């Protein structure tokens, strides 16, 4: 890339802006690699959870604690935040910066809602069932797995918010397009993990 900056317009904006520069390409590949590693990270936590899922040490069982409506609401929030971030990327490709920002903003709000639900849920288990991270191996495995995911959500929220704020006055460029793109990849990945969490932890926990 020559460093003579050329004015970007909808016309000359590249079809794959995230990979239009060498830096972008590197970010793109590097981030996917990172996601490969994250897969193993979460798999290790899932595996631990599965090995300990019946180790409630006399405390409440997952069947007693988990409730479909709460999990369903959380799931919907997160799933919808996935499609909103797809919309954001759609607008990025079309070089409509404002719309992209808007959709990302909605994504953040949905994510925030999810996080609040999760915090409420943890609070509820602790107080209604005395189910804590220390009360049994099941408790440890549950909170660490779901909590790690929650931390990822929180980190993603901070990240996307930073992007929105930092670039609000600058508009879209080939410098920040890859940043937006990998943030959205990250967000989808969080969603992928959640699909397994609600299936393996909650639904399977309710089946027994």
């Amino acid at each position, binding site marked *: 890339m020559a460093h003579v900056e050329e004015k970007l317009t909808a016309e000359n904006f590249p079809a794959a802006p995230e990979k239009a520069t060498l830096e972008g390409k590197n970010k793109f590949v*590097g981030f996917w*690699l*990172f996601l490969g*590693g994250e897969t193993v*990270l979460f798999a290790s936590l899932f595996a631990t959870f599965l090995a*300990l899922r019946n180790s409630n040490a006399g405390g409440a069982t997952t069947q007693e604690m988990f409730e479909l409506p709460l999990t369903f609401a959380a799931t919907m929030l997160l799933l919808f935040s996935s499609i909103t971030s797809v919309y954001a990327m759609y607008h990025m490709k079309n070089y409509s910066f404002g719309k992209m920002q808007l959709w990302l903003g909605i994504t953040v709000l949905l994510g925030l809602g999810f996080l609040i639900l999760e915090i409420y849920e943890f609070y509820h288990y602790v107080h209604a069932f005395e189910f804590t991270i*220390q009360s*049994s*191996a099941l408790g440890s495995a549950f909170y*660490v797995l779901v909590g790690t995911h929650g931390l990822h959500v929180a980190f993603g929220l901070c990240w996307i918010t930073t992007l929105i704020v930092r670039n609000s006055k600058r508009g879209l460029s080939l410098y920040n397009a890859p940043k937006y793109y990998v943030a959205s990849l990250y967000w989808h990945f969080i969603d992928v993990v959640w699909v397994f969490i609600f299936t393996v932890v909650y639904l399977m926990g309710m089946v027994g």
Partner: protein
Amino acid sequence: MSTLTQKKGAGAVIWDYLTTVDHKKIAILYLIAGGFFFLLGGLEALIIRIQLAIPNNDFVTAGFYNEVMTMHGTTMIFLAAMPLLFALMNAVVPLQIGARDVSFPFLNSLGFWLFFFGGVFLNLSWFLGGAPDAGWTSYASLAVESPGHGVDFYILGLQVSGLGTLIAGINFLATIINMRAPGMTYMRMPLFTWTTFVASALILFAFPALTVGLALLMFDRLFGTAFFDPALGGNTVIYEHLFWIFGHPEVYILILPAFGVFSEIIPVFARKRLFGYSSMVFATVLIGFLGFMVWAHHMFTTGLGPIANAIFAVATMAIAVPTGIKVFNWLFTIWGGSIKFTSPMIWAVSFIPSFVMGGVTGVQLAAAPADYQFHDTYFVVAHFHYVIIGGVVFGILAGSIYWWPTMFGKMLDEVMNKITFVLFFIGFHLTFFIQHFIGLNGLPRRVFTYLPGQGFDTSNFISSIGAFLMAAGTIVLLINIIYTSIKGEKVGTDPWGDGRTLEWAISSPPPEYNFKQTPLIRGLDPLWIEKMEGKKEMTPAEPLADIHMPNGSILPFIVSLGLFIAVFGLMYREDYGWGLPVIIVGFLITFGAMFFRSILDDHGYHIHKEDLIDEDKGGRA
């Protein structure tokens, strides 16, 4: 630009290294830090061998022995062997693929500083109430029970340095995927690059398992969780699995780059193309792949049941096949060649029988029922020192000598190199060969002493003598390094004369931008191809143009420093009131620096065409 670096004062040099994002300087940082930790680990090995030289010895106490033994293994694996390999990779891989830089110069530096601070943190345990003492594997039951903060140092230190390793791995992968020069297809990549690639992939997939294993241990020790508390339904075998899911690939993370080093050195000094290049690549990938399916061979005696044991036994043995392919390819590279016995070549050829001896005992260990006898005895200690020293350490030594000109522009003294070799080689076999029999005769490993009259006395004494020969060899190497850095003469391009790959196509050491013009690659061993056509240089793939360079940054150092501070807080949270604020301050520093990095635009700078031409005229190589 580079003229400036010549006349800097000490402070400026230090600042330069603290902020550097240049892979060549990061290589030197890795070399120095890794070398230091190697000496430390070696010193610990000497303490082990002194203590075990005679029965009922009281040179060190039982508790201290366990600390030394644990720190020896941990230091050698995480803080010496891997970083030293990273030094070689950083110095060479970008050059071998004809790249100006790595994909993520900033992250490259971050990776180093995380490793460094993690290592320093781990070793501070010596001064702060005692080092970890549960073995380098730190199995859950013992590690959870271990009093004091030793094991916390282990957990947190490895967590921080492991993060650095993971980052380094991702960086190499992205670099090799994205930054290859025109014409450098995957199947034209030198084998050192290939093995770096596969080893980095192993890092990417193995380290997260370690991260989780350590995190669970940390939660149990510091936050009262119950992962490994049988009374609350916990299960320590989970830790064993997670550790070895990481741990076995880890040994291939170590050995594959060493294989790569030998695959570079042997063709150069046999003056013959690597025999069976594509099968070498295939074998490398296959070893990496199989490496993930065999971890339970470390757990044959855990009681996993005959089905699991049988499956893992057979899978493990399968790895002998691709490794054998490599061994024979090396032998047949030499066959028909014209060997020049420089010291890198001497290390490389003596690696072959040494490593095979260690490899075949590995296959014996894989025979599950026999392993019920071998497991946790000195037979295992003998096995892994044979593969690690005969493979990895020989590889690091060979590679460091071979690429010393690339890193420092000078050659180590060959006579001293050969003295080092003789002492180290003899010492190595003397120390570890006999340990096979110590183990077979019934001595478990990790014992701080043994009682007389059980048949271990003479053999342990002999083993200890060998360790001192290795130490002597190492000291000669140190003298050599000091001597060379004072006296040694500058060398020019292709100092070994028979270089085949791209790092020898440019000056030693290379300029900061590596290649003035990206070279055009026309096949395997690109420099050799050009040489055979009578040319001295690579054909450029692009016209001379401005070169884009990344800016240096102190942020990686600060990010790592923040974590270093935070882990102190984490560890002392329950003991002292200042624990919590320190955690917060630490994380604020880290995340603050990251935040800063992400909102501050850093477009780097350019070296202008005119300056490049000037430099040519100036006659600076």
